[in-house]
């Protein structure tokens, strides 16, 4: 089926999420929708899928104008969607999830689960998915859950499939498999819209590329164009994706983790005998698919994992068993992975957020009072130094863009006297400009002679930023390798195969 969007405009209050966007997707074509976070890709697809109602413009299927009141209409018309956040019910079985919304029934609305199982097996076998219709979805690995999403989209015989950032949660191997699935679907004549901001994937599968920026189509591109050119179109200025960093000048190994283990609240090992060391002036990247113990590792360093065993030594001093405040005072800078939840207090002003870690001491207090004049001076200086784009230091942190929020967190953490810097997914969800800034700051910190620990889930970032890369899988370090290691090897390590 041919899909055409004409002049779609969607506003949320005063914010224009999509402005006069047009798109043409042919059957048997993989059409990439490329753009930064917040460029309006997901909004556009939600309009197409009937979740949002467009303020202007029309949707055409095979040259006929259609109107969708809700996702039900879109599905009935042959549009399927693989959502970025899976629309699966964790406590339901695979079969129950797949049939939801168009259940096969016997008399009087009684579910026909036998028919459902047959259908699931049928579609699953076509693509070699090997899904068990009776497995509980919440027990399945993320990659398999995504296959359930795909089967769910295909069961209503979708002719147009939308993949919304499908690779964000996958290992490199799973990503490769997904690319193969998309190609197989293309062979069957399905029209595919592939939303992403990862240039490598675009270049691998795309037949056509449409680039969105700030809600508008800025142009079409062919997959032959270089990554830098595509990135420039996305961002609207020349960008260089390479991180420039001089060779590391290593000092002594001042940060040493040995035999670190921790249990989760339900008794499974989340950290399993983790050992590594970081030299002064070195960046060690912890790579791996999210949820393999990286969060627990950074928490253990900071003193948030009360039951961790083993040892974490900074300049010979033990960190394990100390309270968070003591750890911070020993010179640990920490950027958490979820800046809106853990990095900032959204309802506090920028200035208040900047002093969160030191609001209890001089020079911020005198007696029982906060010294607000000093705080203003301090915050103004940091906001300038870290280029936080804001009208005032009294702006609430929650109102800032993701990039500016991260700058506030970085400003606070880097303005202490540090002996170690830890950042967990510091560029997650940021625009290209902010990513460049964050990377610069990290490299600068390393060059100043600190040991730096970065948790990265994207291989590109890990390879470019790291001096060495430690790959984690199921709470264990699979191996520690130089950053020149081929991607394929790293990918295998991320799936648990040691190099």
């Amino acid at each position, binding site marked *: 089926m041919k899909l055409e969007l004409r002049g779609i405009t969607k506003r949320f209050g005063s914010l224009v999420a999509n402005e006069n966007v047009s798109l043409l997707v042919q059957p048997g074509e993989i059409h990439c929708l490329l753009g930064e976070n917040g460029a309006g890709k997901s909004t556009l697809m939600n309009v197409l*899928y009937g*979740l*949002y109602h467009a303020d202007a413009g029309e949707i055409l299927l095979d040259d006929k104008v259609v109107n969708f009141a*809700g*996702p*039900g*209409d879109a*599905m*009935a018309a042959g549009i399927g*969607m693989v*959502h970025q956040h899976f*629309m*699966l*019910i*964790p*406590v*339901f079985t695979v079969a*129950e999830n797949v*049939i*939801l*919304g*168009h*259940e096969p*029934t016997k008399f*009087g*609305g*009684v*579910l026909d689960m036998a028919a459902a199982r047959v259908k699931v097996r049928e579609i699953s076998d076509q693509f070699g998915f090997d899904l068990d219709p009776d497995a509980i979805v919440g027990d399945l690995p993320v990659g398999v859950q995504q296959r359930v999403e795909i089967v*769910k989209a295909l069961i209503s015989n979708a002719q147009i499939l939308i993949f919304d950032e499908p690779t964000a949660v996958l290992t490199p191997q799973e990503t490769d498999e997904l690319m193969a699935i998309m190609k197989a679907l293309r062979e069957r004549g399905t029209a595919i819209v592939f939303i992403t901001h990862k240039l490598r994937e675009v270049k691998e599968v795309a037949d056509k590329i449409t680039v969105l920026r700030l809600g508008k189509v800025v142009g079409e591109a062919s997959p032959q164009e270089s990554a830098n050119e595509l990135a420039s179109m996305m961002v609207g200025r020349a960008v260089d994706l390479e991180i420039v960093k001089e060779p590391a000048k290593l000092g002594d190994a001042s940060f040493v983790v040995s035999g670190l283990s921790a249990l989760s609240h*339900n*008794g499974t090992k989340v950290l399993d005998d983790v050992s590594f060391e970081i030299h002064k002036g070195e960046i060690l990247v912890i790579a791996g698919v999210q949820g393999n113990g990286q969060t627990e590792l950074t928490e253990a360093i900071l003193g948030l994992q009360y039951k961790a065993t083993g040892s974490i030594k900074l300049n010979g001093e033990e960190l394990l068993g100390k309270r968070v405040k003591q750890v911070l005072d020993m010179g640990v800078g920490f950027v958490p992975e979820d800046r809106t939840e853990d990095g900032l207090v959204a309802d506090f002003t920028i200035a208040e957020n900047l002093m969160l870690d030191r609001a209890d001491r001089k020079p911020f207090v005198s007696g029982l009072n906060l010294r607000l004049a000093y705080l203003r001076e301090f915050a103004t200086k940091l906001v300038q130094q870290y280029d936080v784009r804001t009208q005032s230091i009294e702006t609430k942190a929650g109102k800032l863009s993701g990039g500016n929020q991260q700058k506030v967190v970085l400003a606070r953490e880097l303005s202490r006297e540090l002996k170690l810097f830890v950042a967990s997914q510091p560029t997650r969800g940021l625009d290209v400009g902010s990513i460049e800034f964050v990377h610069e700051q990290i490299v600068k910190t390393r060059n100043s002679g600190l040991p730096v620990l970065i948790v990265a889930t994207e291989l590109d970032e890990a390879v470019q930023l790291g001096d060495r890369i430690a790959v984690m899988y199921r709470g264990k370090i699979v191996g520690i390798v130089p950053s020149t290691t081929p991607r394929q090897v790293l990918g295998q390590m991320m799936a648990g195969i040691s190099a």
Partner: protein
Amino acid sequence: MKALKLGAVRVPIILSVLTLITLWLAVAAPSGITTIQVNSNANSTGAAGEAFRFANITAITAQSAWISFGLTAIVTALAWWFSLTARKPSRWLSIGFGVIFVFNILISLFNGQTMTITALLHGSLSLAVPLVFGSLAGVLSERVGLVNIAIEGQLLAGAFVSALVATLVQNPWAGLVGALVAGAFVSWLLAVFAIRYVVDQIIIGVVLNVLIVGLTNFMFSTFMSSNQALFNSPPRMPSIDVPGLSQIPVLGPVFFSQSPIVYLMYFAVAGVWFALYKTRWGLRLRAVGEYPKAADTVGIKVYATRYRSVMIGGALAGLGGAFFTLGQSLAFGKEMTNGAGYIALAALIFGRWNPVYAAFAGLLFGFAENLQYSLSTVGSNVPSDFLLMLPYVLTVVLVAGLVGKVTGPAAAGKAYIKS
């Protein structure tokens, strides 16, 4: 040796503690005799099924306490053996243990008195009917994502309207229909405020309960109590003997010679279970309660599903309310539900949001509550405050000990706002 996880030995540990209690009961057993009468006296529950009579059994309290201790010790040992050989102790072990344990406690409590089994069961069922209907209302509401604190209000509204309508029309069945409508109306209010106006569900539930109490009290004092004959003397709803089933010895007269509302309850429990787990309607309902956005993206109407399910639940609670008046041929009285809605809520959670388990939990609470009445009528020397406490102690021990971690529907209590 591999360290044992606490989770794996939870059941045997709990059973061990309870076995120690039975040991204490045996050691401290008073010298005396408990008489167990299986059938009640011929005049109390009607004639059906009474053709078959058991002889009275007399048990020496201390002796039976020691026997119970022996039996519970064996079951506990079995549970340990299962756990230590890395097998899951069967659920039947816990159930068997529970039966022995409860029976033992009964004999100790009734020491020196006569315990009539049919009377105990009959009373338990009567007290359980509103609880079961109430917990079904909770199941239907929470499974679709709305926390239903307003069960109490729905029961009370059902009791009031059924009495009023049945009196005015002089027909108990009309009263039943009135109760359905009243319960559904209260839950419609809950749904409107929770869904359309996104009011906190707990708060609106509590507000509704207070509102219904105030409203019924007001109407009761303004016209009902002063004019009993005209507004508050519902006609009796005759009980029906189910042919065949009511002839079953002991259980027949208890369960199958009952008010029609009790039979409606049996159907409601089975019906809700079947609808919830075996039909398209139920699958969609549960999907909305777990992850409304996922349901929305496959074209299920989230709001409509919520309204419908909550109102059906409210209607069932209304029936439970009607049992207070029509089922027991009583006039409406101020706040006559007396907290049954909150106990129903506990039964719902104890029953893990499953209609069948919730119904059994309701029966259990009804049994505990009835025990208190029975013991005070036979003049037991156990303090009545202790007995009042019994249902709640039972809840805490059972939920914490044997049920383990309970997870309700993921989206219960959360408003779904469409963008």
